[in-house]
Every structure is written in structure tokens, then in C-alpha cells.
């Protein structure tokens, strides 16, 4: 999937903040916990979702632009902690230049108004997290190279790394797990 490099790098930075690589968790719980959303291409899932959920407007690009404005605002306010030099950042994304923590802070500054709808950027900000988390923990990344094939041609090629991280065994046909009935029959 091709996208404007600045849009891509900005939304990658967002996914990386919401579901980061976690070496400390890997140290505590095992190597499988090390990787995060980017390993599973969730930035691509997020971009696709932003471009398809709202009527006929593709929102990935304007959302990335807003994140970048918010990031510059955070930097100008002096509220950003350690920050890379935006000029040095690949593709000129100030948002991507922020630390993971500051990126999450920047989201709260998404500028008003958007599409003349003051609620709208709040809805977008909220959706960014929902899309990313659902995309990561669902089977989506397991579709591998077929992830953008027509829906009926997608094939689950791999077990998503997220499933291994949470030890979800995947779909089962049955579980021998019945522990009886607390009430056999309800009464009037």
C-alpha cells in the first residue's frame, strides 16, 4: 500500500506510541513480548480504516496533518519533553519527532475546528486508539500478504504475534469446559 511518506511516518509514530515495542516486558515475560504494532503493519490497518470509515472522505492524510500541527503546538508550548530535531526527522513529521509519551499528549491538542464540526476531531482522536487496538489484537495481521486482497480472498497465513503475546489459541470448535448449571430452570 503506497502512502505519502509524511502521512505514513506520522501514523507509524502513532501506532508505535499506542502499541510500542516493549523490551522490558520481553525481559520479564519472554521474547515474544518485544514487538509492537509496527511489526504487525497496524499503521497500514489504521490508514485503511481512516480512509474508509467516514462517508466518502479519506481521513488518513488530514488526520496525519492534524497530528503534526498538534505536535508543533506541543513543542511551541514547551510542553514536549525530550524531542528530536523535527528538521532531522525523516519526511518532516514533527509528530514523529516526539517521544512516545509526548505523542499521546499531542493527541489531546488536536486543533479545532475540523470540518466545521467541533466534535469531529474528538471522535477521530478516540477512533485512532480503537482502530489501532482492535486491529492489533484481531486476526488482521495474520492475513499477511493477503491483507489488502479482496475480502473473500484473504487467507489467515500466520498466527498474529498479538495472539501469541496474550496466549489466545485461535478459534476452536469446542471446549470440554462445562461446569454445570447454577440454576436448572427459572421460576415465575
Amino acid at each position, binding site marked *: 500500500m503506497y502512502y505519502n511518506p509524511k502521512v505514513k511516518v506520522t501514523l507509524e509514530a502513532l501506532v508505535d506510541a499506542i502499541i510500542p515495542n516493549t523490551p522490558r516486558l520481553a525481559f520479564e515475560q519472554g521474547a515474544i513480548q518485544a514487538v509492537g504494532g509496527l511489526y504487525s503493519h497496524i499503521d497500514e490497518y489504521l490508514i485503511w480504516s481512516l480512509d474508509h470509515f467516514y462517508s466518502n472522505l479519506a481521513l488518513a492524510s488530514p488526520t496525519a496533518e492534524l497530528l503534526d500541527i498538534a505536535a508543533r503546538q506541543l513543542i511551541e508550548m514547551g510542553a514536549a519533553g525530550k524531542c528530536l530535531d523535527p528538521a532531522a526527522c525523516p519526511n518532516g513529521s514533527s509528530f514523529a519527532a516526539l517521544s*512516545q509519551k509526548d505523542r499521546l499528549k499531542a493527541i489531546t491538542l488536536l486543533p479545532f475546528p475540523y470540518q466545521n464540526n467541533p466534535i469531529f476531531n474528538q471522535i477521530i482522536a478516540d477512533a485512532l486508539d480503537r482502530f489501532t487496538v482492535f486491529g*492489533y489484537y484481531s*486476526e488482521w495481521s495474520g492475513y499477511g500478504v493477503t491483507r489488502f486482497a479482496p475480502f473473500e480472498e484473504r487467507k489467515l497465513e500466520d498466527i498474529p504475534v498479538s495472539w501469541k503475546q496474550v496466549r489466545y489459541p485461535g478459534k476452536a470448535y*469446542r471446549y470440554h469446559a462445562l461446569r454445570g448449571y447454577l440454576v436448572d430452570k427459572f421460576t415465575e
Partner: protein
Amino acid sequence: MTYDADVIIIGAGGGGPVVAKELGELGVKVLVLEAGPWYGNKKWPNANNASGAESSSCIEDLDLGLLTKQFTDYEADMNDLISGKFRWGPADRNRNPWFRSLAQTGFPWQCSGVGGTTLHYWGNSPRAYPLAVDNVWPIPYRELIPYYQKVEATLPVHPAPMTAKEELFFYGARKAGYPLLSTLNVTNPGYRPQPNAILRPDPRINDPDFPFGEKPAGCTLRGHCVNGCHIGPSVAKVAKRSTLVSYMPLALETGMVKVRPNTFVTKILSENHPQEGMQAIGVQFRNTWSGEFGELKAKVVVMAAGAIETPRLWLNSALPPNPWVGKGLTNHYFDCVAGIFDENVLMNLLGTPEANPFVGQNSAARLDYPGLGFVGNFGMSPGLFASLLYAFGQDGHNFPHKSVGEQLKYLMSQYRRTLSTLIFVDDEVNPQNEITLDPVFKDEHGPVPLIRYRPSKKDKEKRDQLARIAADILRKAGAKEIIRANWPPGIFIHSHNTMRMGYVTDTNCEAYQVKRLFIADNSVLYNGLGGPNPTLTTQALATRTAEKLVEKYLK
């Protein structure tokens, strides 16, 4: 006038197929119009890719093999809000979902398609709390009982089975001092299995040698209620009783019911009758594949499009103004509270180190609390589980407080040792909570609904109280960590009361201002039932409405 049917029903969700089955059994000719696809029907073998046939009226068209192929058990394939098979949108997944405007953070979670939102519901079918109906509704609770009984026998409804996660929930509820309830008519706080519309597992399910075969009868405790159940020997006997597999096959069996999926009703057609006054005479619809419009006529029209679309359709049809159309929206002001357990605690209690949210029915235990609402346990596959618990909370401007980053990954690493609960609040009907038409945004079906909901101070207090109760149950069960998601008020999983009985309709659910126009969905409920899940009550009322409309117009 020539009629296309005696009765046209708009919507094949929780309510419409109930009316269709009841009318069909009384010999009434029915046409059901559904905006979304029809899964598991041979006339639409590629339900998401090709327009297929125009209609189906034959039970032989239902095909379990096809349903099993379409319901893949994968949560993005089934439940992605944008492209999933269960979404509010056209059958063609290459097109975007149908847009709704919100005046706040959140989203409505509904499904188009034969079965409607029951396609992914958890099957929970409790009755209303008598306290919320008696001396509140325009009809008494006892009036509902025979209709409850009929629906409970038809679906059927039974106490849900326990797996580890339910045993843990019940243990906590008992330790917190609540009694076990075994009644259908709940008047006092207590815990009980969910009364649910899921066929019971085969009693031999725990026998490792028991051959399930390819097509077992009853639930297999596999945890995919939400992703679309397809377990059973035939479509009509699939374990989770969405209306796709319960009332719709029964309706087809009468030989009197025809169903057209992919048919979005855009307008109620009406005329002024010299004696009756304004009356409904049919509908205008749009085929969602071809984009073509058409009209269909009937003696009676039943709106069953849900609490968001039914008022939208009324407003887009320029029917007479009524100050209560679209007003009074309640949504049970959900929240989510969970506990994480240590392995040894679970081992001592359950004899297993994990509670396993993906095993068992998605929600099989509850604590009822008339006056406040209720707390239900739940468990699901990880994408939906993580979303409800860790990504629905707060709003955009509280982003740093969400569970994100390393914390989210830590919490999800404890997935198999997490017991989660949902809170359902007995929220007040307030006319300022509403469905109106968006003044700007239109789609191919007209101005889109604009949704607005603010909980009252009392609603917030009740939710906080239920959250404390849920946390107490989890702690008493031995949880070492408690998480409260703190959902924003704009998440609409249950929606009701936007066309209330006594305000928009009479007690027969016929519109006061438009004769021959009835309502049979959650919009006609007088209130949020005190907290209980609305489907059973809507189905009981729909059963009653079918009877009333025949008495009045078709005898």
C-alpha cells in the same frame, strides 16, 4: 388498490422477524424488507459480492454449509466496524459503512442484515424488572408475562451454563453477600445465570471421547457468540438464537412470509383517509446494489428498523410532527470493570490457573440490581476484549489516561487471567437525549441521523455505584488488580425509547398520528426496563403487536 402484501415489515432485526412469524401463523401475507445482506441463504451465495436474487420465501433456501463458510469466527472479518460482515452498512463490503453523526465521542454498534444486531448479540434474554414497568409504563407488567412466556418457549430461553469465568463471577458475588436468584421476575438484588437464548450444550460435552461430529446440537462453549454462531445441525437449529436462525426460519415455515434483503426503506408512504385520517399505505425503498428506487403497498406497515433508524425514517418521511419522535433515547450508559487474578488464586478456586475469556458463552452470568441496573460478566476473543476493556474508555481529550503503550501490552499479557464485567445502568428517559436529522450530512437514503446523549447526575451516580459493586465482586473473588474503563456516554450498544409507547404510539404500538403504522423495535419501549437487555421485551411486545394489528385491521 393492489397490495404487495397484507403487511410490510421494515427491518429483520430483533423485532421484525417476530412479527413476521406471528402474522404468518395467522395466515397474513407478509413482506419483510431488510437493508443488509442475508447470510446462510442459497439465493445469495456471495452475499457481500453480488446482488443475488430479489427475495426468498422458502425455508429450503437456508443452508448451514454456506453460513459456516460466511461466519468465519474471525473478529476483524466479522466485527470490524468499517468492513466487517456485521456492520451497519450495505452488503457490499467494498463500500463504506452507512454514516451516523454523533454530537459526542463514541459510536453506535449495530448490524444490518437478516438477524440485525442479534447476529452478534450475546443471546441474553432477561425480562424487564417489574419495578421499571408497573405504574410506570402505560401497560402493567402482568400484561407482558404471557408474551414473555411465548417468546421464552419459542427461542427458547434457559439458564446459561457455567464455565470457569462464570464460576469465578458467582464466587465473588456470593462472597460479596448477594443471594442466588432463580426467578424470571427480579425484584431484589442477586446473582443468577443469564437467561439466554442459546441451546444447551450436549450433556456429554466434557467427555473427551464424545464425538461432536460435524454438526452437533447445542452450544459447544467455543466463545464465538459475538462473531456469529453457526453451530448446529441446520440453520434453524443453530445454537445461538439470533432471529436469523430462530424467528426467521419459523416465519418462512408458515409459507406466508417473503423477505427482501438489500432493500433500504427511505420513506413511509401515507395518505389522508376520509374516515381514518392519515394512514400508512406503503413504503419507498432503494435497492442497495442497483441504487434503484421503488414502491411497495400494503394494508399495514410495521417499523422495526431500530431505535436510531425508525425515528430517522419517520422524520425523513415528513410524517406529522410529534414532539416525542426521536426523543427520550436511553443506552444503559455502559461501563466496563475487570479484575486480574494471580495464578494461585485461580488454581485454588477453579482448579485451573486461568479464567480464559475465550471459553464458554460470551456472557453467561449476571448480578441484577433493580433500581440501579445490572452487572454482567463477559469474555471474548482478544481484539474485541481489548477494545471494550482498554480502548473504549474516556474520550479523545483524556488520551493519556487510556490504557495504552507498555501498560496496555502488560494488561493484555494477563488476558487469560482477567475476568471482565459490563455495567448496564437504569438510565433515565430524558427528552434532550435524541435522534434528529443531521442538518448537513446526507447519504443515499436522505439526511443521516444525528445522535445526542448525556447521562443525568443520577445516571452517573448509579453507574459509579454499579462500578463499585462490580469491583467489590471481583475483589471478593480474589482479583489483585481492578481496571475500570470509564466509557464515554456515546457508545450505543443498547438503544431505546425514541418512539415511546404512550407518546408516539398507543398501547397497541400503533402510531397515534398515522393509522396502520405500527412499531416493533427497541424504540417503542417506554424506558430502559431498569437496565436489563432489551431484546426479549421487544420480542414479547412484537408478539403482542402482531396480535393487536390483526385484530384491528385484518380480521
